[in-house]
């Protein structure tokens, strides 16, 4: 975002700005922010490289005096991170697939096919945004234990993460609002050419909706990756746990330095993901939040 024109002046008038004072403020802010936000991430990586005695030494060291890179290997083996990582990926991409298929279809139906009672359904969906998530955890857990009518127990299956992730009113809202902006004439001409609703969706609506699909996809993945309590409850079997839940469960049994190394390993994929997709992530954040 460039701010060259005079029309985009802010609190302080750029033309009257004292250049040296601005430089000083800029440098101070950049250094302060770097220390505050990268500092802990730096410690996360380097504290995992300290030896066992150095990790609990008084006073602590700012960098590992003796690099013990073996911690990372140790953490990988002892906490079975490969399995936790694969589980988390499987849950995250499964949730993504379910959300993309079911939420896109639902939003398309609510926006363009407009069935009877569609608005009532939409209102009921949006109403769930008002319910605090933590209040619902207990009855949700009991529902997963014994699914109504079918009497299935979804505990320790990926379904316990995939299916509840579809009940995301925010996705429906974002997608529907985007689909609403697709011009009706386009869909009408497709219908005249003999395209059914499914073909219209895949051939016309979806290609136009790439930005919003991107935003929804990113948040679907990030939500599963960051979630803690639900996977902890829904996948109690240690062989089925996610990274967050698995590392937490084993946190009392391993030395500090190995634990920090494990935490660093589990943070790495999200950091890389963020650095690659930062533009879409940050624009998606403001697209969703300014809903008023």
């Amino acid at each position, binding site marked *: *975002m460039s701010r060259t024109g005079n029309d985009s002046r802010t609190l302080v008038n750029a033309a009257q700005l004292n250049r040296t004072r601005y430089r000083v403020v800029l440098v101070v802010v950049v250094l302060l922010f770097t220390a505050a936000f990268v500092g802990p991430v730096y410690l996360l990586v380097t504290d995992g490289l300290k030896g066992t005695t150095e990790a609990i030494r008084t006073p602590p060291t700012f960098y590992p005096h003796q690099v013990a890179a073996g911690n990372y290997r140790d953490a990988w083996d002892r906490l079975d991170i490969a399995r936790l990582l694969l589980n988390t990926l499987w849950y995250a991409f499964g949730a993504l697939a379910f959300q993309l298929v079911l939420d896109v279809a639902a939003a398309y139906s609510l926006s363009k096919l407009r069935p009877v009672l569609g608005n009532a359904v939409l209102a009921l969906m949006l109403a*769930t945004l008002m319910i*605090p998530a933590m*209040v619902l955890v*207990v009855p949700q857990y009991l*529902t997963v234990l014994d699914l109504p009518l079918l009497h299935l127990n979804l505990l320790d299956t990926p379904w316990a993460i995939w299916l509840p992730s*579809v009940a995301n009113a925010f996705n429906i809202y974002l997608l529907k609002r985007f689909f609403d902006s697709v011009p009706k004439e386009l869909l009408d001409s497709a219908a005249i050419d003999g395209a059914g609703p499914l073909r219209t969706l895949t051939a016309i609506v979806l290609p136009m909706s790439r930005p919003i699909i991107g935003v929804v996809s990113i948040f679907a993945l990030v939500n599963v990756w960051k979630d*803690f309590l639900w996977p902890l409850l829904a996948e109690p079997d240690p062989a089925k746990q996610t990274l967050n839940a698995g590392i937490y469960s084993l946190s009392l049994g391993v030395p500090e330095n190995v634990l920090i190394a494990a935490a660093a390993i589990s*943070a790495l994929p999200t950091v890389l993901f963020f650095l690659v997709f930062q533009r879409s992530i940050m624009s998606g954040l403001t697209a969703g939040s*300014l809903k008023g």
Partner: protein
Amino acid sequence: MTSAAIRPVSRALRRNLTAHGFLIGAVLCFACFSWYPMVREVIMSFQRQKAGRTSWAGLHNLRQVVNDPSFWPAWRNTAEFTALALLLGFALPFAVAVVMNELRHARGYLRVLVYLPVMLPPVSALLLFKYLYNPEYGLFDHVLALLHLPTSGWLQSPDMAMFAVVIASTWMNMGSATLIYLAALQGIPGELYEAAELDGAGLLRRVWHVTIPQTGSILSLMLMLQIVATMQVFVEPFVLTNGGQGVDGSTTTVVYLIYQYAFNFSNYGAACALGLLLLLVLAGFSAVYVRIDRRLER
């Protein structure tokens, strides 16, 4: 009825069937994992489960929950967390956004920095903070000692534990609020600042009379959302203080009590009753917000 009249009816029927077909998957998921649990939450608050049999309990669960010696301390801790989190977590992102909006360089870099902690898995960040808070070998006390400032037991001191939780929580979460404020600040027309300056308003007065009123609606919305979110705090005290109690129950929150009823004591009735109380309190905040917001818009 003639066949000409039947055709549109059957076409409308078919159109509706297709539309509901597209809708059904998501509706079933909402029904199972949002709508039904919500109804169940309310019903179970008034039910008792004993030896696999369910019976009506009236207000028994509610009475049991209120008479629990942890009940009032948990609300006090939650209120303390909310107040501290607002003091820090509400003011800081706004101040940071205002400063960021003034800078003409390194904007992309700063935005990435502020949002980076939001992307970290919470357990990773919290385990690190727990390590840094350690009064013996943690870095925080060491740095404070180097600066000749008073050190603290952090999580192991009943007075400081909640404050320590708030610091970690703010660090982890402030990125989203900051970027939202930044977007709102960029929508303020420059002429307003120009005019205020011509009227002789200094820097602080411009913030007070232009920046804050212009971002007022987003600020009040975020305030409400943050109150609702922070009242539900769970993960931070849970990971930082080994299961969420802390020294002398100093970090026991309402949601932690719910968790304990449900998953440590299998007392689902009490868990739901306390959940319902929390829901009512949060709904109260939302109602107050809606009223104030309406009055402001008028």
